């Protein structure tokens, strides 16, 4: 029996959690002698009231959508892929190789090529932990997080010793050639009179992220493979009894997860920096966990949660620009949101469930 109506589960619980996080953040801001209302207003103004602000919010959201979907797909098979960071780094390597060494005639072909490369590299990086989990029972949490470190070291080696142009100081590749430049929102939506999204990095890969949300929804709820993944996630013995191979589902689910995480690199590496830099992922792989938790592993939820986290990132940048709130505190505010929406979910859920049950009894 459903304890709560679906709308309360999907909307009310996250909303109350958010409100609690906002309240606590406000107290922290008061604690250091700043005005929380002005700070909140500044975040909203900077992130949502200007087209360039939206450009940044959606840019960050694109990253979080990909990594959030990556975590969500693995969640459906009851696996905790915390290697999104490493898979995205390797995805970046794939994008860089595709952009640097293939003479693309046009961006539309280039993005297909780099998406493919990003998915291949990201999936390949998830393959070894997946195989170890499926065949040897090595726990996926341990192996994927270790693979994050291996990815960082590998990328470090390649950027410093192999891909760095002669005489350059930054450990980064050369700039990608002009035909691989992805249209930004500015290129797409500005007219000759008004310039919209000026200077902001949001680009065409945002639409790929939205498309990925739809495809993941189709995969999980409308295909046989998705059914297998969910069945395996709910009960491994039952799935096995139904003829679903645990090895196959573990590996396939993690390959899809790794490919989705790798896709994030198309946005950061080809869309924004247009060269591969050492720290292009910037923790988005880990934010993806929070996004998936908050979005309850549903693509629509992931989409909304990713936009929320994009807002927090961009709003945080605005706070850093215009106030004296130190950058560490902005991380605290972001962490509070993760804590309440992800980790302390039951704190809100259980009283609400009780409330709804008592309401039902009365009615």
């Amino acid at each position: 029996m459903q304890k709560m109506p679906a709308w309360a589960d999907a909307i009310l619980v996250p909303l109350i959690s958010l409100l609690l996080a906002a309240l606590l953040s406000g107290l922290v801001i008061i604690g250091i002698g700043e005005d929380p209302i002005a700070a909140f207003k500044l975040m909203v103004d900077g992130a949502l009231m200007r087209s360039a602000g939206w450009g940044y919010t959606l840019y960050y959201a694109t990253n979080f959508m990909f990594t959030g979907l990556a975590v969500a797909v693995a969640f459906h098979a009851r696996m905790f892929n915390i290697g999104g960071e490493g898979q995205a780094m390797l995805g970046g390597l794939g994008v860089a190789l595709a952009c640097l060494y293939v003479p693309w005639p046009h961006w539309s072909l280039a993005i297909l090529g780099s998406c493919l490369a990003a998915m291949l590299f990201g999936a390949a990086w998830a393959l070894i932990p997946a195989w170890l989990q499926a065949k040897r029972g090595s726990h996926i949490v341990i192996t994927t997080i270790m693979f994050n470190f291996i990815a960082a070291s590998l990328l470090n080696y390649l950027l410093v010793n192999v891909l760095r142009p002669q005489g350059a100081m930054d450990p980064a590749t050369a700039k990608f050639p002009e035909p691989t430049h992805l249209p930004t929102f500015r290129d797409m939506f500005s007219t000759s009179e008004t310039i919209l999204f000026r200077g902001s990095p949001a680009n065409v890969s945002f639409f790929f992220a939205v498309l990925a949300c739809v495809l993941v929804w189709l995969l999980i709820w409308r295909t046989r493979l998705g059914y297998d993944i969910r069945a395996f996630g709910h009960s491994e013995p039952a799935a096995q009894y139904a003829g679903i191979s645990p090895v196959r589902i573990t590996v396939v689910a993690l390959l899809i997860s790794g490919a989705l995480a790798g896709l994030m690199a198309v946005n950061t590496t080809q869309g924004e920096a247009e060269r591969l830099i050492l720290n292009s992922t910037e923790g988005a792989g880990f934010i993806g966990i929070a996004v998936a938790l908050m979005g309850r592993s549903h693509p629509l939820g992931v989409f909304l949660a990713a936009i929320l986290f994009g807002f927090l990132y961009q709003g945080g940048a605005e706070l850093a620009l215009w106030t004296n709130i130190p950058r560490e505190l902005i991380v605290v505010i972001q962490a509070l949101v993760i804590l309440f929406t992800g980790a302390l979910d039951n704190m809100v859920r259980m009283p609400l469930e009780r409330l709804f049950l008592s309401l039902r009894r009365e009615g």
Partner: protein
Amino acid sequence: MTFVHKFLSTAAALALSAGAALSEPALIFDLGGKFDKSFNEAAFNGAKRWADESGGTFREIELQSEAQREQALRRFAEAGANPIVMTGFAFGNVLGEVAPDYPDTKFAIIDMVVDAPNVRSVVFNEHEGSYLVGMMAAMASTSGTVGFIGGMDIPLIRKFACGYVQGVKAVNPDATVIQNMTGTTPAAWNDPVKGSELTKAQISQGADVVYAAAGGTGVGVLQTAADENILSIGVDSNQNYMHPGKVLTSMMKRVDNAVYEAMKMGENLETGFNVMGVANGGIDYAMDEHNAPLVSDEMKAAVDGAKDQIASGALAVHDYMSDNACPVE
């Protein structure tokens, strides 16, 4: 914290009326952060000195992510901040793209050259200062072996190393210079433990003076040198005070002066290529009460002689970055 309140309310107003000109200068720190006891902190000190003297205020931001480089530049420029000063070569690419969009705003970048009509590029002749401290190291050394510990292995740090070796060899052609780099990534700028290990390794090979050109990593080098009772040489800021009597001198790169001057010129910032070297006081070696007993008159005379020669152009120290090679090892 009324100052902060004022800041916040003006900021909120500003977000609404973006474009209203206020010509406060702005300072953007690199990812290393404001208080690194070295490069970024020197920039902050220069800005603070300007603010104290002129009674003005300046905006500042410590970056959190790479994407914010461009964002910070554009937002400050759109808000009318002028000039906008940034520290570090990593801004080079971004500034090259942003500067042409804001022709009325002046930019100053330190440690990098960006060719645009509204940009002031400040670079330092670190090889000259390293040459001077190299001479002092060779004179202070009794073992004939001195050490160099660099931060991240990039051409800029090799430029330090190359100048240093030239200075050492100018005094003692038979001297041995042990060179180590802390790492190949930006993490090498802030790894005092590794700096300490490298110092111990160099001491075991006979080094009795070590020069740290490694940002925050240098803190570990100076500490270990003091613990092991050998001499060290600081970098960027005057670090003599950190271990009085144990730090021979510091190669001072006056980032603070560069920032101070840029902010003082304000909107009339002189753009173009700006070299700070021994000749114009942008580079120097540090003398104060903490290292006075360590530096003999003879040492001082020799170094000041070389300094005059470099300033007059009679002595040319080879710049590693001019051809990516060093004539001496």
